[in-house]
């Protein structure tokens, strides 16, 4: 994110004092850090040393310094001491009457430097793991203690039912934490696809077995049709599982009581296609734009699955895309809703 034009000083950027002839007369601590040059070696040299030559933006900055003119915001590439180039946001502010004979202050902020990115990623990663541990520890304590409590023979059936209600609520919190962690991992880019040769049919079948009890509770029938012989994909099995689980549990949650859910495994071109169809209410026009965004909960969604987090499809999409695939849906009156995702098949190189 580039800094706001009016707010450059609030960023931990570098401040450089430059004289009218372009010579550097002041070099702040942050300048040492972001450009790599020490104060000793840079004072007295031309400011253009750090700017990429022959770039329109560099000329604009140099010209503003020479003329002592204000330049509120300008992005330019800079050469750091280590030879690497990074994009910086600059502001040139005239400084008349400065004791060090500077005619301009140059404020620079590393916009997308590698260093900045790595630092951000590290902060995000640390946050993720700390959050996981901190939230999950008390949730585990509640979960395990309740289990022990429910096994106690002195607990009456009514009490056991209440304990079970607490247990179910706690499980919901655990799922929410899992979803939040998944989302942050996808966003931090730390959820990397460990792709290998996998049998899609096996993944689909094991996920079906896992979710069958949920479907049974709603007296739904799940059918599985295999329409291809090609079911070896090159993908991260955990990601694929996550994507399929989310799509299938949605079909169960949003499909009607006693309805039918059709899972079809097919192939088209270099991709394996997995689709899940339910004959529930169609996705309203108002929901379509935001369907794959995080925390989106439409009116229908809230009514049919009050416990949803609004993260399922966001995670499914991120998981499918991390595998190099695509996800889409069709939802038409009288036809129900079908979510399909494509994931690259394993192709033998000859």
């Amino acid at each position, binding site marked *: 994110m580039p800094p706001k034009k009016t707010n450059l000083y609030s960023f931990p950027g570098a401040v450089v004092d430059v004289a009218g002839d372009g010579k550097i007369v002041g070099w702040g601590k942050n300048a040492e850090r972001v450009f790599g040059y020490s104060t000793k070696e840079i004072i007295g040299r031309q400011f253009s040393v750090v700017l990429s030559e022959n770039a329109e933006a560099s000329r604009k900055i140099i010209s503003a310094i020479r003329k002592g003119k204000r330049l509120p915001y300008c992005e330019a590439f800079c050469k750091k001491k280590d030879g690497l180039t990074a994009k910086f946001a600059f502001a040139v502010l005239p400084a008349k009457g400065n004791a060090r004979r500077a005619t301009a202050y140059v404020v620079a902020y590393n916009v997308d430097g590698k260093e900045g990115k790595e630092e951000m990623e590290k902060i995000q*990663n640390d946050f993720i*793991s700390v959050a996981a541990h901190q939230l*999950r520890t008390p949730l*585990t304590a509640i979960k395990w203690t309740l289990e022990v409590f429910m096994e106690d023979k002195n607990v009456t059936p009514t009490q056991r039912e209440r304990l079970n209600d607490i247990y179910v609520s706690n499980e919901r919190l655990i799922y929410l934490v899992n979803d939040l*962690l998944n989302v942050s991992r996808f966003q931090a880019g730390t959820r990397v696809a460990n792709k290998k040769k996998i049998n899609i049919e096996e993944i689909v079948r094991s996920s079906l077995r896992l979710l069958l009890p949920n479907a049974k509770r709603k007296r739904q029938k799940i059918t599985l049709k295999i329409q291809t012989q090609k079911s070896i994909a090159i993908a991260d099995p955990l990601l694929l599982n996550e994507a399929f689980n989310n799509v299938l549990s949605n079909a169960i949650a949003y499909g009607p009581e006693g309805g039918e859910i059709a899972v079809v495994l097919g192939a088209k071109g270099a991709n394996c296609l997995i689709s899940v169809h339910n004959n529930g209410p169609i996705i309203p026009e108002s929901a379509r734009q935001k369907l794959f965004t995080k925390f989106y909960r439409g009116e229908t969604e809230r009514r049919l699955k009050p416990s949803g987090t609004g993260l399922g499809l966001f995670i499914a999409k991120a998981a499918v895309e991390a595998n190099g695939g695509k996800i889409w849906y069709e939802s038409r009156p009288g036809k129900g809703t079908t979510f399909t995702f494509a994931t690259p098949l394993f192709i033998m190189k000859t």
Partner: protein
Amino acid sequence: MTILIVEDEEILRKVLKEKFEENDYSVVLAMDGEAAINLARKYKPQLILLDLILPKKDGFEVLKDLKSDFELKHIPVIILSNLGQDEGIKKAFDLGAIDYIIKTQHPVNEIVEKVKHVLLTGNGHNNR
């Protein structure tokens, strides 16, 4: 059969101890990484359940120490943590853990079952 449980959270320690004792295991508890190594040397347990974020010495270091100790390296170690980052899981397996369990994802009885399974077969199942 003796198992060493390394866990810094008191409530979790209490439940685990109770459950394993119910299943006729004798249980040794450690609250930090240093105590874990000392108790492992003293009791030579048949299995170690090891948390990762611990005072004094973290679980990865404990695992490294255990695996480089001639007398302790054969003891199967199951990681029992709430960290679930891919790299951490990989690191634990690379260092020689036999299984990796994310605490919240399993009922406590399942953990007892996993320990029984490992002690019976000598295999962890890579079941996250």
